[in-house]
C-alpha cells in the first residue's frame, strides 16, 4: 500500500493490507500474529512482526508497505484473502460475495 504519511491508523492499515488488528494481534484468516498493543497502533512495529517491507521514497514524500512474508510464502493461510476491485465501469466487486459457490479466479493482462 502507498501512503504519504507513515503514521497510519489501525483502520487504514487494515484496509490497505487485508490484515485485521484484533485483541489477539494481527490476523488474516485463521492466522494471528501477536502484537504489543499496550500503546497506540505502531505501523512500523506491526510491519516488522508481519515481515512486511516499509520503503520510503523521500524525494516524492511516499511510503510503500510491501506484502507480508511470514513463512517465506505468499500465502500464510488457505483462507482466501479479502479482495475488492472495480469493474470496467468503476463499480466495486467484493470477492467474498461469492461464498457458497466454487470460484475460479483467472488473472490476465493486455500485455
Amino acid at each position, binding site marked *: 500500500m502507498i501512503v504519504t504519511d507513515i503514521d497510519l491508523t489501525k483502520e487504514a492499515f487494515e484496509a490497505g493490507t487485508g490484515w485485521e488488528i484484533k485483541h489477539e494481534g494481527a490476523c488474516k484468516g485463521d492466522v494471528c500474529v501477536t502484537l504489543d498493543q499496550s500503546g497506540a497502533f505502531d505501523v512500523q512495529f506491526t510491519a516488522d512482526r508481519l515481515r512486511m517491507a516499509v520503503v520510503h521514497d523521500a524525494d516524492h514524500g511516499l511510503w*510503500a508497505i510491501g506484502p507480508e512474508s511470514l513463512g*517465506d510464502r*505468499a500465502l500464510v493461510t488457505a483462507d482466501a484473502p479479502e*479482495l475488492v476491485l*472495480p469493474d*470496467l465501469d468503476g463499480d466495486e466487486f467484493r470477492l467474498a460475495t461469492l461464498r457458497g459457490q*466454487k470460484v475460479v*479466479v*483467472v488473472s490476465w493482462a493486455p500485455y
Partner: protein
Amino acid sequence: MVTVGIETSGPDACREFIELAQPEHPSLIDATHQMEARFGVVNIPNVTWIDEHGVIVRPPEPGWPGPAQYPKFLAQQMRTAAEEAESAELTPEEQRERDEQRAAAERVRNIVSGGQDRDTYPDAIRDWAEKGAASEFVMSPDEVVARSQPRPMTKSVGAAHFELGCHLWRAGNKDAAIAHFNEAHRLQPDNWTYKRQAWSLVGYELAGGGAMGRFTQNAPPGREDEWPFDSDFNRDIAKLEPGEYFPKTM
C-alpha cells in the same frame, strides 16, 4: 468465474478485450497489482481455485481455457504484420537479419510454450466442479500454503518498489518510476508480471500505441538507446529452459 485484468494504466487498456468477450461473470481491473500482494500471482495467465467456504484449494498457478486463442482483432493484426514482413523486398543483409529474428522468435516460443497443460487444465476444473473436495486436484490447506509462491523478505521489498513505480508512473513521474521498476525486477527476478507490466508501459509508448503496442517488451529496432530497463523480454526469456516460464501445474 471471476476474471481480473492486471494493468497499471487502468481500465481502458483492458476495455477492448473485455467488451469483445462480453463476459457474464464479474470482470475486474487490478490497477495496483493486488493479485500479487494478496495471492502471489507472478505471471499471467494464472488461475486460483476457491471453494464454497472461501478456502483456496489450488494456489495461483499457470492455467488456460484450452489451446491458445487470440481475439480476432489481435489475430488479424498478427497476420497483417507477418504478411507485410513477408512481402517486403530485402537486401541479403536484411534477409539474414530477418532469418536471425525468426530463429530467435522460435526459441522464445519453445521456452514460453514448454511444460504447459493447456489442453487438460479445463478438464481438471470440470472434475473439481463435479466432485468437489473429492477431486484429485484439490489440495489441503497446508499444501496450498506450501505451494504458493516463495516470498522471502526481499520480495516484499521488491513489491514495495514495484508499487511505488506504478504510483509514480500514473502520476507522470516516469523517470522515478523506472528506477523503482528496475529495483523491483532486481529483487523479484522471477516475477514476470512485474517485468511485463513495466516493459509494456514503456514499450507501448515507444511503439506509438496500437493493438500490438502493449506487447512491445523489448526496445523497437533503432530505439535501443531509449530503453530504460536493465533487461527485456527476449534477454530474460533466453536465460530459461522450456517449462521454467510457465511451470507445469498438473
